[in-house]
């Protein structure tokens, strides 16, 4: 039974990883064709870095992801504090509208924004792409900051005021440190969502501005390209490294915080945010 269970796990993981491993292997294959191994080469990596289209879209992806998640984090954090202090009815309305982009299928969000941009005659391009990304990022920031505000002890802020702090000083020294973990989670969530987005970007960009996902899609539709294998390898290895670093850091933190004799240590799995990028 134990053997059966272990082989089942092995088979499912084989299914999950075989395509990735094969991509990695073939990114070093001299021949362009899939089936045959004709020798080791780094040619595809060189071509990848020389490819203007891919490099441009990589630049766009990074610029959009950083800008959009930065703006979303600022607007979203401020909004969370505001919403948290609103009266119940208003708060519920705000939170429900905030939920719409999360629940809405991406394709509907994408075309609705496209309709907006074309109605106000905003040409599709970098600006529209940035606006779209900020729009689908803010809700995730609000959703990760809100719980931290709820956990916060309300009297801490009042105590700071009583002790003579100005409202701004109390805000900086009391509220902000309390909600910081949520803000950082929100920022990282926004960054990954923005980095990976295809559907919404697809409908809200134009005039030759494209991000990595859009470029990958258009190359993939034209058929197999060894450059894409090289790109996949680089992306996979960077994701792997990033996850390993994050996990080592968080498990270190947990080990330091937990009493030594506690045995039910459950590890820290950095779970992907949602099905959003689909």
């Amino acid at each position: 039974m134990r053997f059966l269970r272990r082989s089942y796990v092995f088979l499912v993981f084989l299914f999950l990883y075989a395509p990735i491993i094969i991509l990695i292997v073939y990114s070093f294959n001299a021949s362009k064709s899939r089936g045959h191994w004709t020798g080791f080469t780094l040619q595809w990596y060189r071509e990848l870095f020389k490819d203007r289209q891919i490099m441009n879209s990589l630049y766009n992806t990074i610029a959009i992801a950083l800008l959009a998640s930065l703006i979303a984090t600022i607007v979203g954090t401020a909004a969370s504090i505001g919403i948290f202090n609103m009266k119940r009815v208003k708060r519920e309305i705000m939170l429900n509208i905030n939920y719409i982009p999360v629940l809405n299928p991406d394709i509907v969000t994408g075309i609705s924004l496209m309709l907006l941009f074309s109605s106000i005659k905003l040409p599709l391009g970098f600006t529209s792409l940035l606006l779209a990304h900020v729009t689908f990022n803010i809700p995730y920031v609000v959703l990760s900051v809100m719980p931290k505000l709820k956990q916060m002890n309300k009297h801490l802020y009042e105590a700071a005021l009583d002790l003579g702090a100005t409202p701004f000083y109390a805000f900086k020294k009391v509220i902000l440190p309390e909600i910081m973990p949520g803000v950082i989670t929100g920022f990282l969530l926004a960054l990954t969502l923005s980095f990976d987005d295809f559907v919404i970007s697809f409908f809200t960009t134009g005039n030759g501005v494209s991000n990595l996902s859009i470029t990958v899609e258009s190359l993939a539709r034209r058929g197999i390209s060894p450059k894409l294998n090289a790109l996949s390898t680089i992306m996979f290895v960077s994701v792997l490294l990033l996850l390993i670093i994050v996990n080592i850091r968080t498990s270190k933190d947990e080990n330091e915080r937990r009493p030594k004799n506690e045995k039910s240590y459950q590890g820290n799995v950095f779970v992907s945010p949602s099905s959003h990028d689909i």
Partner: protein
Amino acid sequence: MKQYRWLAYPYAVWMIIFIVVPLMLVLFFSVTAKAPDGSIVLTLENFKKFWEPMYINVLIRSVLLAVYSTVICLVLGYPLALILAGRDFKRKNILVMLAVIPMWMNFLLRTYSWMTLLEKNGTINAFFGTLERLAATYLNMELTLPRVNILYTETAVILGMVYNFLPFMILPIYSVVSKLDRSLIEAAQDLGGNNLVVFKRVIFPLSLPGVLSGITMVFMPAVTTFVISRLLGGAQFMLIGNLIERQFLFSNDWGFGSALSIIMLLLILLSMGFMSRYEKENSGGGLW
């Protein structure tokens, strides 16, 4: 802290411009049409058009493919989640992380990887070819293996969906089952239940919240996807997502495209309502 309310106002304005107004526009385009004289008239033409068999079939096909891939994900993922939550492996967190890592790679590259596998001259067929040649040279055997020829078919699309969404099924089930109270299982065993009875009466019912959120998390993206079908199904393959995309980018029929979006939105809301009815008493169990 009441003085901080104003901090929400910028976002309130943002919401109205970028969330509420765009959805209103979709609704507006779906129920209006341009009359020949240039004026805009209210009409249900766009929704009526959807009842043509051609379009209804696209909807049926989208739902069917999503159901197939959800069922396959459940059948594959449920046992895996149970095994991972069990006592077989010491370093579970590493295994669970392994199940998650593929999700972190760009979604399009993951789908693309299946194109390279399933192609006519792709890796799988080349592998079969190599086996045949090896058999011929070393064993003097005429070996004919079947060739995989499923790229640009429904099977490839289902495969792509299962591959992309399987982790969304595994994780919620795992997180529910791994938090199960062990003493319940032990109590059931003490009371004489054999493994099958314990599973049927204790483990399975308690894992249902995870199963439900897994089903939701696979079905929703599967029914709305248009990328997987575009890459693995080929240019002519139509799911409702592709149909919507086509109205906006090729046929420029914004009214019909908006109507289709409204229909898709209703479909999602309907299935979510359906799921939450079953989830009522078993709250929680999601990924977050």
